[in-house]
């Protein structure tokens, strides 16, 4: 299993390493937020905004991961992999691993860039912050691949994504504090596990407890990975 996962990971990582420009392109969106939105929050806003941006990167970076699977399902690539004795779980985990590694690298680069603007973080905080982001990436990435495998069509997958990601993001408070809004909106955001992850990420770089967010993220990992593994098993029966 471990060997299979490593092989699948290497197989999907190799094209990225051969063409690392894609990693830089993946940074374009968070850099724009950092440069064109971050300053609106004032000098003291960085400590608050950058952790949220990291969570947003985890959301957008891994939710779209399933798109890479669709051409492989349509051509015979998935089928080819499924007739090999390679573990079904590895087919999922290896791919998610690639996305999470890229996410962590991008997150690190964004934090370093943010430090030029005035963001402050200790190595320990960076490590913890990236760990939480990675957990979220594992959860969302697994679910994304599973949903892609189920819906199979790009346009269906795209509408599934936009109808879930946008509300999840708006209700997580990554851009503005949810407590600024009316009570009903605030309570709606409390139902969104992502909002707790955002809060936790902010606690890591400031003060406060990250416990609730860690629990939220871990629960999402359990659900996402369970759903992903089950789908990969079933669609490969």
């Amino acid at each position, binding site marked *: 299993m471990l060997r299979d996962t490593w092989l699948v990971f290497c197989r999907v990582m190799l094209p990225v390493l051969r063409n690392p420009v894609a990693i830089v392109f993946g940074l374009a969106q968070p850099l724009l937020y950092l440069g064109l939105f971050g300053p609106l929050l004032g000098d003291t806003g960085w400590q608050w905004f950058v952790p949220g941006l990291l969570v947003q990167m985890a959301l957008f970076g891994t939710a779209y991961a399933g798109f890479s699977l669709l051409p492989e399902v349509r051509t015979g690539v998935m089928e080819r*992999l499924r*007739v090999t004795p390679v573990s079904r779980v590895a087919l999922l985990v290896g791919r998610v691993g690639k996305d999470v590694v890229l996410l962590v690298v991008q997150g690190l680069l964004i934090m370093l860039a943010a430090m030029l603007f005035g963001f402050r973080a200790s190595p320990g905080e960076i490590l913890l912050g990236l760990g939480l982001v990675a957990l979220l990436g594992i959860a969302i990435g697994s679910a994304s691949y599973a949903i892609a495998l189920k819906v199979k069509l790009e346009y269906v997958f795209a509408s599934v994504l936009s109808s879930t990601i946008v509300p999840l993001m708006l209700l997580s408070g990554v851009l503005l504090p949810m407590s600024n809004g009316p009570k009903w909106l605030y309570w709606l955001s409390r139902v969104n596990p992502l909002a707790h992850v955002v809060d936790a990420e902010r606690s890591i770089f400031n003060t406060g407890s990250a416990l609730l967010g860690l629990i939220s993220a871990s629960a999402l990992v359990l659900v996402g990975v369970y759903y992903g593994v089950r789908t990969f098993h079933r669609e490969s029966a």
Partner: protein
Amino acid sequence: MIKARGLARRFTTKSGPVDAVRGVDIDVAEGELVGFLGPNGAGKSTTLRMLTTLLRPTAGEAIIAGHDLLTDPAGVRRNIGYVGQKNGASLDQQVGDELDFQARFYGLSKHDARRKVADLLERFELQGMEKRAVITLSGGQQRRLDIAMGMLHDPRLLFLDEPSTALDPQSRRNLWEHIRQLKADGTTVFLTTHYLDEADFLSDRLLVIDHGSIVGEGSPDELKNSVSGDLVVLGTPQASIVATKFDNAVVDGEKVSFRVPNGDRALPGLLRDLGDLGVELHSVQVHRPTLDDVFLTMTGRSLREEADAA
């Protein structure tokens, strides 16, 4: 090598259940090259996907390459090669990398994988293309790469699903030679096709499937002989006289056609008899039945029409 009993697959669709495959029995001995012939939608690919663990049968059982399909699918996967209808190599990978990863998925060590990949690249005339991106290969090259990927672990049993679809005639011929070579090297081959010439040229034995059931079985020659005889076409002004001598004779102007068993041997005697009757002949033709005739006899439909319609 393959022993399947009552293998069936029912799909549930919005308009009710569809029985794609209705309980087929398949026996393939070691070293055989068996063709699985049928029109599009007959259940060929569904059967093949069941035999290769890609699709779980809704009924029936099978032993494939010594492993139980239902209880030990991983064992089946380790021992069979499979080349699907569509191309199996990722377009964003390089040829050498893709082969190498696939070999390692089958459990080969780094060293063994490298050796095996070099060997297969040469065997399938892909040498020097290791560094090429898969997307730059021609259709024929991609197909050969697909087969190479199916052979990485030296499977004793290889499944090919419509191997020559979308290939130009030359690549097709070349592919056929490779498939025959596999058989010569001792690999058992099970292939589906809806091309009669392909089935005829490659197979030791044919299974004919239609509407999810096997409707015929035998060597291409046996199946052709099962169509009642060869078609004899005589050109003569006395066509109607000749027609009275044979059952099922059809007269078309100055032409009369009828079927006789072993036409090539029957013909000399037949011509002598007609000469004795004073029949004057302009032309004589004997047509061996084609697999299309076989298919027509078994299913009442021409495979060629099906293939054209598809």
